[in-house]
């Protein structure tokens, strides 16, 4: 039943990709994600957040939510080993996140990886929302979707994972680019 609903949800994006509904598991097509990333160039942060909230509203149970997040995590592209250095490390008490940011055409692009697959799934969503946005928008982003999809516990101050630190770090990068821009404009 749930999956039928999901099917409906994905049909909305059918113009971008044709998902495979072979088995019970949701299949996330990387081409779709890439396409979506490109589409994000034209989408506001809040718009993408709403999309995620809508997708999650179709899940009946926590198991389904986590299954989806785990699937996203498994499909998050691996970060090149050369980026896995202390400098890029966002330390959590239990899991570790590596995060790199790049600035291109006035947009911040993020890449990240974690040793926890659930954290990777959450990272995947954060990248979907924030990557490809302008520094100003990223700095201002409220990221309410995390609360709305019921994943706030993972951002709580429990020291247990690197996710909260990662969100802070993503914003720090954006802030740094923002300041850099201001300085270069003045010059």
């Amino acid at each position: 039943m749930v999956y039928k609903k999901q099917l409906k949800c994905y049909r909305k994006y059918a113009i971008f990709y044709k998902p495979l509904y072979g088995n019970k598991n949701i299949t996330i097509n990387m081409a779709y994600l890439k396409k979506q990333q490109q589409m994000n160039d034209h989408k506001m942060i809040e718009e993408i957040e709403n999309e995620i909230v809508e997708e999650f509203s179709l899940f009946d149970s926590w198991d389904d939510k986590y299954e989806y997040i785990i699937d996203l995590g498994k499909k998050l592209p691996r970060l090149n080993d050369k980026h896995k250095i202390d400098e890029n490390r966002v330390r959590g008490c239990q899991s570790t996140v590596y995060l790199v940011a790049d600035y291109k055409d006035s947009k911040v692009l993020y890449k990240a990886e974690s040793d926890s697959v659930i954290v990777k799934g959450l990272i995947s969503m954060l990248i979907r929302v924030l990557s490809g946005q302008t520094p100003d928008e990223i700095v201002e982003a409220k990221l309410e979707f995390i609360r709305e999809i019921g994943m706030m516990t993972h951002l709580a101050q429990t020291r247990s994972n690197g996710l909260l630190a990662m969100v802070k770090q993503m914003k720090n990068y954006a802030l740094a680019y923002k300041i850099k821009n201001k300085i270069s404009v003045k010059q």
Partner: protein
Amino acid sequence: MIESVSIQNKLDVFAIRRQFPVLNREVKGKPLIYLDNAATSQKPQVVIDALVNYYSNYNANIHRGIHTLAEEATLAFENTRDAVQLYINAESREQIIFTRGTTEGINLVAYTWGRQNIKAGDEIIISTMEHHSNIVPWQILCEEKGAILKVIPISDEGELLMDEYEKLLSPETKLVSIVHASNALGTINPVKQIIAAAHKAGAVALIDGAQSTVHLDINVQEMGCDFFAFSSHKLYGPTGVGILYGKKHLLESMPPFHGGGEMIKEVTFEKTTYNDLPYKYEAGTPNIADTIAFKPALDFICQTGKEKMSRHEDELLVYATAQLEQIPSLKIIGKAKKKVSIVSFIIDGLHPQDIGILLDNGGIAVRTGHHCAQPLMNHFGITGTVRASFAVYNTKDEIDELILGLQKAIKMLS
């Protein structure tokens, strides 16, 4: 006849469970299965009632007041001290110092006895399986004094290598500070033997009883330790209360830890004389409510019967270990012959945190991570484990649920 004895000795776990209101709640729509007892145990109604009763009926500052409320509060507070003395069989009530917890107890010794007695070149012995709270205070002290920290290695099963310990002892050894039962592995250490060897070398011995005090019979006189530290909240009591037991001659000769009210006899600007034991170490208004509510927790243990409780917890440990070993990709970390009801494990290719999140999703509370014992995790070449720890109110049915939860998590994550 034999049957009636066995029934008498059998714990009525359902009658026990009824005393713990939190066990009625649900988590994520499923009945709570609480297997994080080594972090903190749940509280029986009598403990909760004692807290409410204190604040509702006789909240007052203790020891100084002459009014009725102060008298009642003082009496209740000091009653807990007597109960603790009995519980660990201390020589006298003056040797029971109230602290905030095990960590503060160990720090108290490090900052008072340690500062007074440790000098450059002295040696302090701890072990690989110590909690950070029995590592860091000694590191700070060693750094300050130029003393040396020595570490007893452990076997792959998670047992102390006693031969290596004997080799570490020397005339330079001033202190041996060892955990009674490991919070990460469950290993019960042969503390009597450790203490005897320390004394033979002329060293003082401190035992971290945070995990052992709820499971084992504690008799500090028989054990022979010089200091023994533990926390109320792991014994069904409130958080924020700990106990430091010390040998009288040591407590008397050590300088105070904190200065302030309560701990003084007379204060002039020229000189202050300190109060008698135990008040010398209890500066300021203590945690009155929680200390008072610790007594009903001890009463609960005594009334239920420590032996019965231990037997039940042992049964749970044996059952859980056997069930967990059925899972092919699972590896138990810590296979000591003598263990308290703690079982730590890892699963091939899976992150402990992910397992913990998915178990929580099924209403099962476990602990994941390094358990504040990073050097121990390094020893095993891992970053963390999943830890299930059992208390008197846990059941075999709950362990079955844990196994089902794990199987489901493995399926979802692999």
